[in-house]
């Protein structure tokens, strides 16, 4: 690990926080309807939606509007994918592309609607038109997560009967947050050399005289929102490892910043709502410790590389298999940890080929699902664990569990437990099935412990709505397409439903003034308890699976047991 590499990562973290604090405040203002610099656009979309966008909604009404909108998104996308290449503007006709079949289209539509962007297909097989429809979802679905987080915060911080209006929240966050940030980001990426054209592939004759078909497309537009919305679905199969998606070390850092900025900001948005900046700093601080610790492990594992290569072939152990030269080891490590901490799912190196511990951290981050996480969904998980921590700490010291003046009672803790347990269940149960039945095992590329990691990675990625893959697993089969599709849907909506219901219950509660019996949640001692609750509940649940996957493989590799 070089000093320059470590310094670069720390400077990045400082820049991230310097931007996230004001951004968090700005998002708060947007959600509270105090930002109007694009009024004509906002009014135009709200007018199209009609009277539904005007009324304050209870949590049930809000949730119904949310689910209906999600359903519309998924159905339209499914239809487009099934009819792709027959539709106008479809470039693929002449190039031998065909529309996706039913189970693949179900998987893709579920994947992009749930902000997962798991891809059982390779990007090169879609027409520009289908890619545009997916890009629309890359804008809308992170805003879905964001508004659900807003509802939860509103329920948590005040006493009220209604929690806002879904359509108005959605439109405002899209017009004032995602549109401007993506527009700026896209121009920056254009300046850094990303292509953006609707011209078809370039057919060239190389210096040696061979024919090379170079696929292009509206890459800059797609790439920006793919990163900003923690979507992750690549324009090309190789995702951000493809030189057109990520041509140089500067673009690499911009892509990392784009995927981390909004979820980090949301913690400070929460602080602004709670009128408690220190609470936000405590939660963001402890999360940043986890994030950096994971990054350090990945970096360390990359530097130490793969001793098997050294023993068998006499090469340097530093492994470049599945890495791109230009990103460098620290730039690769930071991308690997960020894309899974923030549940983006973009990749700039193949996680399947990384040293076992460098591939294990992504797995752990997705299992925890609270290391800042996806838009809104991550903050919901952080707050869910904060509630569980309050409850556990309250039990330990005999104080009434309260969070921000709201009593945490049976109903809240039941819902939090439901939200918390869904995640391990939908990961471990399907993994167990896939590992004992040949519909699951026949897709595994790599032998041994690594094969187990491939399967558990797939379901973890789906459940966490991440979308990155240990791509050796061939998942374009009816079994994996349907099962991962369902895991993504349950992982997204069931835990959100529990949290929105909890918001409804919390909103109805009186605020209890802090007393001597109140456990302070904006202290660093609370942060420690929070950290250990997260690690114990989150990590220990998955420890047996991790032990059989990356940890076992690491030991095998260090022992040099493979010929």
């Amino acid at each position, binding site marked *: 690990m070089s000093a320059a590499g470590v310094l*670069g990562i720390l400077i990045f973290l400082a820049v991230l926080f310097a931007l996230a604090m004001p951004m968090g405040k700005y998002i708060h203002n947007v959600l509270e309807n105090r930002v109007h610099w694009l009024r004509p656009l906002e009014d135009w979309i709200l007018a*199209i939606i*009609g009277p*539904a966008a005007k009324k304050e909604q209870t949590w049930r009404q809000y949730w119904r*509007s949310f689910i*209906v*909108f999600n359903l*519309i998104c998924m159905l339209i996308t499914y239809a487009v994918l099934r009819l792709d290449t027959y539709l106008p503007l479809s470039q693929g006709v002449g190039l031998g592309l065909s529309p996706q079949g039913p189970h693949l289209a179900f998987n893709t539509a579920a994947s992009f609607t749930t902000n997962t962007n798991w891809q059982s297909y*390779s990007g090169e097989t879609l027409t520009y038109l289908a890619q545009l429809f997916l*890009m629309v979802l890359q804008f*809308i679905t992170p805003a879905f997560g964001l508004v659900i987080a807003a509802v939860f915060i509103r329920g948590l911080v005040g006493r009220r009967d209604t929690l806002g209006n879904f*359509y108005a929240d*959605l439109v405002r966050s*899209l017009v004032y947050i995602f*549109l401007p940030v993506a*527009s700026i980001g*896209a121009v920056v990426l*254009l*300046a850094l*050399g990303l*292509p*953006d*054209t609707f011209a078809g*592939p*370039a057919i*060239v004759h190389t*210096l040696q005289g061979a024919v*090379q*078909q170079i*696929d*292009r497309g509206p890459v800059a537009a797609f790439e920006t929102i793919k990163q900003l919305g923690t979507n992750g679905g690549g324009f090309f*199969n*190789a995702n951000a*490892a493809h030189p057109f998606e990520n*041509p*140089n*070390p500067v673009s*690499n850092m911009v892509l990392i910043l784009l995927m981390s900025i909004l979820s980090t900001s949301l913690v400070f948005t929460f602080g602004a709502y709670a009128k408690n900046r220190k609470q936000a700093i405590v939660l963001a601080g402890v999360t940043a410790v986890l994030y950096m610790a994971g990054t350090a492990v990945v970096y360390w594992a990359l530097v130490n*590389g793969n001793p098997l290569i050294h023993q068998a*072939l*006499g*090469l*340097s152990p530093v492994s470049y*298999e*599945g*890495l*791109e030269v*230009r*990103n460098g080891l*620290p*730039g690769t490590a930071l991308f690997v940890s960020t894309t899974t901490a923030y549940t983006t799912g973009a990749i700039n190196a193949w996680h399947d*080929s990384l040293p076992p511990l460098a591939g294990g951290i992504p797995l752990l981050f997705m299992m925890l699902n609270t290391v800042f996480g996806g838009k809104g969904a991550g903050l919901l998980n952080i707050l869910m664990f904060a509630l569980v921590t309050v409850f556990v700490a309250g039990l330990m010291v005999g104080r009434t569990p309260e969070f921000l003046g709201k009593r945490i009672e049976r109903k809240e803790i039941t819902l939090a437990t439901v939200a918390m347990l869904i995640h391990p269940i939908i990961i471990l149960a399907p993994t167990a099935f896939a590992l004992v039945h040949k519909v699951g095992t026949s897709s595994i590329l*790599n*032998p*041994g*412990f*690594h094969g187990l990691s491939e399967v558990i990675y797939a379901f973890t990625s789906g459940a966490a709505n991440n979308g990155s893959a240990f*791509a050796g697993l061939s998942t374009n089969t009816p079994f994996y397409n349907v099962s991962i599709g369902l895991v993504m849907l349950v992982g997204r909506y069931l835990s959100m439903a529990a949290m929105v219901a909890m918001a409804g219950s919390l909103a109805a509660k009186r605020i209890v003034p802090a007393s001597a019996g109140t456990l302070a949640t904006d202290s660093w001692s609370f942060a420690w308890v929070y950290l250990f609750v997260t690690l114990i509940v989150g990590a220990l649940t998955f420890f047996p699976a991790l032990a059989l996957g990356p940890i076992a*493989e690491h030991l095998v590799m260090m022992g040099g047991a*493979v010929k």
Partner: protein
Amino acid sequence: MSMRQDLWASLRGYVALAVLFGGIYSLFVLGVGQLFFNHTANGSLVSYHGRVVGSSEIGQAFSGPQWFWGRPSATTGANGKPQPYNADNSGGTNYGPTNPALIQEIKANMKLYKGIPPSKIPPDLVESSASGLDPDITPQSALIQVPRVAAARHVSQASLDALIARYTRRPWLGMYGAARVNVLELNLALANGAK
């Protein structure tokens, strides 16, 4: 509010947002790219003697002794057979670190550099890239190819060393990314008679 009202509101909202993002936003990015960054926005295509020979961002296969060679590429063609540097189907091997196939693959790649002791071969030169299209190699990977290229082209090794130094890009701010040489640009310089 009824379910029906929600359905209509969502449908209308979706259409408006699709127009905004699928239409207006993507045309904005397209326009800025084509107007201000025309060369890169169209894929950074480069020419040799008036003929487009590739993209400086995208690696291409070199096998003649007179060229510098890029990294191994695991991309496949439409028939599923190996087709290195296929820019219509990016991808890597996805071999795990303890997969015996990984060792076999690297061993096969090392055959190209037979005369060089393994400890001197930079790993990036014999291990497949992520995209299969990596346009770069490390400067060390270029330098160890100098004797071969110099012999094939009848030029001095020192002049090639200097050329590599000229085409080496350094990490940004000394902290981000790796030192690297773009193989196509280096070979174009050779083709254009650089010494």
